[in-house]
């Protein structure tokens, strides 16, 4: 399962710049038409929000995370748990664009 860091809990949401500070995560399985949103339990924390987020995503069975930027401590934990990290380029602004790319496999 993949988790995408987003700003809002709807399909028109913009992508969040920092993985740990994302308010919501969008969960996508093999089928990009079936998505679910979940609140990041640590989004309002000043410190260690990323650690909380990774701990939560591990309970959800996430194997791949997508965001524009990852913090040092988050990256360490993701590597420790063998979670694949994807850096999304700036040209993708919204969740819709990402899901569209997943649908149209090359």
């Amino acid at each position, binding site marked *: 399962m993949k988790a995408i860091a987003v700003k809002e809990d709807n399909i028109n949401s913009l992508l969040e710049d920092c993985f740990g500070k994302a308010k919501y995560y969008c969960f996508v399985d093999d089928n990009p038409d079936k998505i679910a949103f979940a609140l990041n339990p640590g989004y309002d924390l000043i410190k260690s929000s990323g650690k909380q987020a990774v701990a939560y995503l591990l309970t959800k069975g996430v194997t791949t995370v997508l965001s524009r930027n990852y*913090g*040092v401590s988050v*990256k360490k934990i993701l*590597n420790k748990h063998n979670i*694949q*990290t*994807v*850096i999304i*380029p700036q040209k993708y602004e919204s969740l819709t664009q990402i899901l569209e790319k997943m649908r149209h496999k090359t």
Partner: protein
Amino acid sequence: MARPIKQRKILSPYSEVSFFPAGKNNSNDINNIIFFAEEYEAIKLIDYEGLNQFQAAKLMRISRPTFTRIYKQARIKISTSLVEKKVLILSGVNIYYSDDWHKCQNCECIYNFIDKSKNIFCPLCKCGDYIKIVNP
């Protein structure tokens, strides 16, 4: 003979390679500032992540005095760019990455690869057309 410069460890690659002041878009200008990847990493670790110089130097596998020099140089370049409205061009010299990073040739996303027993494909568009990132 001077000792060769030690390679600096960079945590993750960046997808963008330049920063332009508003209204300026000439990337071939002779006055552009070359901003090295280690300088970008130093600014990120200290000012964005909030680490101290000792912790940041340890992460980049360099000595603390070397880190201080890199950080100071980075701040000079950023301030010059802001005040004189110059373009910052990111460039990588003497660096290596902590993971095996790949850039998809189709969707341009950058990803690391965990399970080396499987074929490498992009997690976003599922294509297998990639380049291995050595330098930014």
